């Protein structure tokens, strides 16, 4: 039986076991939406803005490990989706974005709602397709899903002109995709693995540097076992929070600009850094010339282009972190004498005791770190935590007690304000049984505030804890530190929304809290309310994120305390 292109899209999504599509209809994609109307196999969630839809698909993918699917129309539909696509690309999140396009005959004529979609998404997708003929459609969709989740994952964009959604052909969905030009390496080279094991054996001060690739490859069980048995200290990047439990004795904390002193000193003093799916981001390394001067690097990554990109790598291993560690495990268990790192761990523990992550609590004003720690105590241990971008993001990464990977959803690479709330909605859709909390700021939350309605409509009760300092806090902090406190366009105190009324106007529930008691009460109520909630927490306006490696400084030169003026 012949099917239209629109029907083929639906059937292909069903073949891929898609449970939910996040999207927004429009002219060029209408035929596909007509078929969505007629089917019952998957759910469609209508966002209020295409950016929200893509972040929802992203949050769904991060929390569930499945491919997130977003659907938008041509022109402005697609351009509104761009920030969402770029966010997923930078953090290697598997997604398929389907956009409508003007009919093939109109492409290039400046038609209504036409934009060169594949031209726009080319640098921010793993791959993209313009479907010019319905006979290619099923294959391309299969390839899109395959590319999105294989190798180093990433978003894949499929642009479908309107006439292709009408044209008919027999539906044949390929069983499997074989590409001559794309064969990701999963298994690590045996000799390279042996050499790395030898290096680990010889090292006196080794450290595991755990990155987002460890989460994506599902390696956390192995990593926990290896760290426990070898007793080699470990640090985590922002993207890897939760791979080790927060209370793991070998975890020195988060590394980088706002990492812990012990974690940064572990990198600084190490003689061997074993990178597990991390990419030596500039926020991690600090000043690159001074980074880990005495260390050799073992770099395990599925993407060969990451190896040696930032630092010279003596022991490169191209492969999937989980599969490489599976091959390494027997050697490590047999050959590593775990007692020999006692001294090294002792040194790092002294750093930990000397300069632990800390803040000065107060009875007069709420400290943001207290809010995060308190939330960690009140919320169930498996609650999903998302963040927007700014000070609250770093405080969350520092102070929330993460217990498992995929627990923290945050825009680590691109740093997208407005990510947290829609991502939390998507995560809630994927993990209905979990409490989902978004830590946000009074700046970030405004960037996708419209999605309260989506949460209301689809019963996705996400709790937004707004750490409200009436500032664009992170920029304010930099202005104070590096621009002589000239607060250019960062003071938001003159106009603030009434978050309580705002939530209520869109079917949510709101709280404005100024004391610790009020906060505890509000959070407990919000969790029980099963509504989208805003908890507007008035925090200490001038609290800084510390410690901090100033931009372009070596990791060891951390600012630990605030100058008391």
């Amino acid at each position, binding site marked *: 039986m012949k099917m239209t292109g629109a029907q083929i899209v639906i059937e292909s999504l069903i073949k891929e076991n898609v449970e939910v599509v996040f999207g927004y209809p429009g002219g060029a994609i209408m035929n596909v939406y007509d078929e969505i109307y007629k089917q019952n196999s998957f759910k469609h969630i209508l966002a209020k803005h295409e950016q929200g839809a893509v972040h929802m698909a992203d949050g769904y993918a991060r929390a569930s490990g499945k491919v997130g699917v977003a659907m938008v129309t041509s022109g402005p539909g697609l351009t509104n989706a761009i920030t969402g696509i770029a966010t997923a690309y930078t953090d290697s999140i598997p997604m398929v974005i389907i956009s409508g396009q003007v009919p093939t005959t109109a492409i290039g004529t400046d038609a209504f709602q036409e934009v060169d979609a*594949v*031209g726009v998404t*080319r*640098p921010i997708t*793993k*791959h*993209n397709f*313009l479907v*010019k003929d319905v006979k290619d459609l099923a294959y391309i969709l299969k390839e899109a899903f395959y*590319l999105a989740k294989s190798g180093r994952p990433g978003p894949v964009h499929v642009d479908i002109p309107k006439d292709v959604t009408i044209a008919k052909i027999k539906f044949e969905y390929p069983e499997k995709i074989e*590409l*001559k*030009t*794309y064969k990701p390496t999963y298994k690590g080279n045996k000799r390279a693995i042996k050499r790395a094991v030898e290096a680990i054996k010889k090292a006196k001060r080794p450290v595991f540097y755990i990155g987002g690739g460890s989460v994506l490859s599902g390696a956390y069980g192995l990593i926990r076992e290896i760290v426990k048995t070898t007793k080699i200290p470990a640090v985590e990047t922002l993207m890897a929070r939760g791979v080790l439990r927060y209370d793991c004795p070998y975890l020195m904390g988060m590394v980088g600009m706002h990492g812990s002193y012990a974690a940064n000193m572990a990198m600084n003093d190490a003689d061997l850094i074993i990178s597990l799916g991390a990419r030596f981001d500039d926020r991690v390394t600090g000043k690159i010339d001074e980074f880990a001067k005495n260390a050799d690097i073992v770099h395990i990554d599925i*993407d*060969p*282009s990451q190896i040696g*990109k930032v630092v010279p790598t003596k022991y490169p291993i191209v492969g999937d972190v989980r599969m490489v560690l599976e091959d390494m495990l027997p050697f490590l268990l047999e050959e590593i004498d775990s007692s020999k790192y006692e001294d090294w761990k002792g040194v790092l523990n002294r750093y930990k005791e000397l300069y632990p992550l800390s803040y000065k609590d107060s009875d007069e004003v709420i400290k943001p770190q207290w809010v995060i720690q308190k939330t960690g105590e009140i919320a169930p241990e498996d609650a999903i935590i998302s963040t927007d971008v700014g000070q609250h993001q770093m405080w969350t990464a520092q102070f929330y007690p993460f217990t498992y990977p995929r627990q923290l959803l945050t825009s680590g690479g691109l740093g997208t304000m407005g990510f947290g709330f829609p991502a939390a909605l998507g995560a809630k859709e994927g993990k209905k049984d979990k409490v989902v909390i978004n830590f946000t700021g009074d700046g970030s939350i405004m960037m996708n505030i419209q999605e309260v309605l989506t949460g209301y409509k689809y019963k996705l009760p996400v709790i937004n804890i707004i750490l409200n300092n009436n500032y664009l806090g992170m920029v304010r902090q930099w202005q104070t530190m590096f621009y002589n406190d000239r607060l250019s366009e960062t003071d938001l105190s003159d106009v603030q929304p009434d978050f309580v009324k705002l939530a209520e106007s869109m079917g949510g529930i709101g709280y404005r809290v100024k004391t610790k008691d009020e906060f505890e009460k509000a959070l407990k109520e919000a969790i029980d309310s099963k509504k989208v909630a805003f908890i507007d927490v008035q925090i200490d306006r001038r609290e800084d994120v510390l410690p901090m490696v100033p931009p372009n400084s070596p990791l060891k030169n951390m600012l630990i305390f605030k100058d008391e003026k």
Partner: protein
Amino acid sequence: MKRIISVILENEHGALARVVNMFAARGYNITSLTVSPIPNSEFSRMTIMSEGDPKIFEQIVKQLYKLIPVYKVIESDDFIEKEMAMVKFPLKEVKDNLADIDALARCYNGKISNVNDKSVVVSVVDRPNRIDNFLKAMQVKYKNLEVVRSGVSVIER
């Protein structure tokens, strides 16, 4: 530093744009670029000449490998390099020197390709640096030349 690479990639729409974008996104100029299909295959071969920091170039090459339609990136310092150039002389400028020009062109694997009442066209095929020399010599001696260069093509020895 001058670098030449060859890229074997799927012969499909958008593939060229993906490759070129790697250079554009880093603010790198492509000195020359040739593309044509490889006979009896679904692939095309691109030859790209560019200049720049070797470290950034190495990163570009790695990123090129990562592109889905790219099959192979060939870097070699043992390429045979060839380029074609066509030079158009106004007839009045060279009408007394046709024999000289033809003789010189033959030294560069070329000849006079066309003559009409307005102009003489000479084509030569050689290594890019030899083409440079040929063109310099012609430009010193004659005026108002029009030059078209094909860009370099290479094959591994």
